């Protein structure tokens, strides 16, 4: 049967070969259009456990699908596709492909915790949102968020130098998140600094950027710290 209204079907469910000849008959293009079935054919049983291994996701198994979280949700009020109750259902059953359809909005949770306050089963939906966003990030399924970029730069400097240098953190953060290094507000900020700060202080700041002092006898400490952080992360996800 011809498909009259393709717009009603998810684009990724439409299969069509531009050039196809079957038994000598040319059925290229629309003539061979097929739609993949919508039937769910299996569950990924361990998906729930994976989300539970992330901080915040521990109680996801408690959900009974009452919808209180979604209803109280700040983001749901902006966009009805932002539906923690529904995502929790998908996580519990391991319907990962369905969850992937919303992967680009899950991170939008603003951590207001209205859901956590209303949930009758103490699921902590806000934590589940965070855990899911982290899982998506870890698996390269979503671009890293700005705050993750910032955290990474900050941690990197701590481990490398035993201290942070504000300007370096900002520069590193901008680089990691693909933002231009020169931004209007920074230019303005710089101008005002030079106007008000005493010369000595300015010179000191400049030196710090150029010479990047390390904390005294930091040496191996950074390596040990990096090892520890790595071990902790692994323990959290496989413990």
């Amino acid at each position, binding site marked *: 049967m011809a498909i009259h209204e393709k717009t009603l079907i998810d684009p990724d469910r439409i299969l069509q070969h531009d050039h196809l000849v079957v038994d000598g008959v040319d059925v290229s293009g629309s003539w061979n259009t097929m739609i993949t079935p919508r039937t769910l054919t299996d569950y990924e049983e361990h998906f729930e456990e994976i989300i539970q291994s992330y901080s915040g996701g521990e109680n996801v198994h408690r959900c009974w699908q009452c919808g*209180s979280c979604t*209803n*109280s949700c700040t983001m749901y*009020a902006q966009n009805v596709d932002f*539906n923690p*109750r529904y995502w929790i259902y998908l996580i519990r059953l391991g319907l990962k492909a369905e969850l992937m359809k919303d992967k680009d909005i899950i991170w939008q949770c603003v951590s207001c915790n209205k859901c956590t*306050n*209303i949930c*009758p089963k*103490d699921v902590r939906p806000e934590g589940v949102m965070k855990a899911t966003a982290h899982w998506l990030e870890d698996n390269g399924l979503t671009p890293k968020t700005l705050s993750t970029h910032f955290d990474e730069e900050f941690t990197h400097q701590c481990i490398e130098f035993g201290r942070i240098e504000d300007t370096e953190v900002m520069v590193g953060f901008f680089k990691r998140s693909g933002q231009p290094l020169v931004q209007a507000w920074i230019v303005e900020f710089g101008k005002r600094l030079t106007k008000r700060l005493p010369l000595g202080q300015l010179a000191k700041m400049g030196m710090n950027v150029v010479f990047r002092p390390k904390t005294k006898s930091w040496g191996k400490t950074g390596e040990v710290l990096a090892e520890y952080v790595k071990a902790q992360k692994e323990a959290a996800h496989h413990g």
Partner: protein
Amino acid sequence: MSAQDTVLVVGAGPAGLSAAATIASMGKKAVIVEKEDVLGGAPIISGYAKLVPSGEWAKDAIGRMVSRVEGDGNVSIHKSTKVTQVAGEAGNFTATLSNGDKLDAGAIVLGTGFTHFDSINKPEWGFGTYEDVLTTTQMEQMVGTGQIRCPSDGRVPERVAILLCVGSRDRQIGREWCSKICCTVSTNLAMEIKEISPSTDVFIYYMDIRTFGLYEDKFYWKSQEEYKTKFVKARIAEVTKSPDGRLLVKGEDTLVKRPIVIPMDLVVHAIGMDPNALNPEIAKTFGIGLEKHGFIDRAEQYTNSQGTTRKGIYVCGSATGPETIDDSIAQGQAAGSRAVADLYGQQKVAS
């Protein structure tokens, strides 16, 4: 009256009344101690309408249970009285009453019941804020008057919303049990409302429908198929008021995956059954234990089903957890028989 002839029955709801009648029918004396000045327990004190599943008016059905013990020479009754102290042991207790009397009894049966959940503890659902938000007990009383009206202005409601599980199944307020009867009571109320007021539509907001056993077709299906009750799978988040004075129920319709803000004229809370608020006091007076939710704890589950944690003291009905009237009555009979058996000394009391 000697201790060996007498069983003390505390509480005169369906459970206690049933225990007392059983004891008397076996030729022993039952002494009822009831803290209120009426007998019959929650169905009478709170003025329930027609009962599940018999369809009989509570005042008739439970009234019969009351007159049965009132007319029995083996039963004596102390109203507006409590037990303040229990001395002695199984086979030979001495109870002190709040009126100063002392009473010897060979065994004790507790039928001290439950306390209705107080909806004030869920302020987001509007009880105490809006006049047209009621509890199922208030709605039962309204059905009893034969008229369905909005308390605020007396109009006939176009729509009634019944919210299930109010004060049950909720970790936020430390109530992790299902109150068992409120689903069926709510479907029953929906039918009673429709019968009295055919122009009123009833909506039930649910997470699960637990009309167990034979209640399924008699209540759930019947209210849906014959009385056109609408069932919506949503836990209401908030009840507010719209500018035109009607109530608004807000939530997520989980099956449609859409937010709902629906105007209603009356909102009814299907309130749950809490442990009797006096249970800490009762536990102390009678020297018995409570289980983790605060209901009265039982002894060995299979060989001493109505036993409490203290030898010679038995318990029946909703004192042990949410129960129906029918089960409370059956437990009353069981506890009464077991207590009489103790009097005869024919059966060893399981500890």
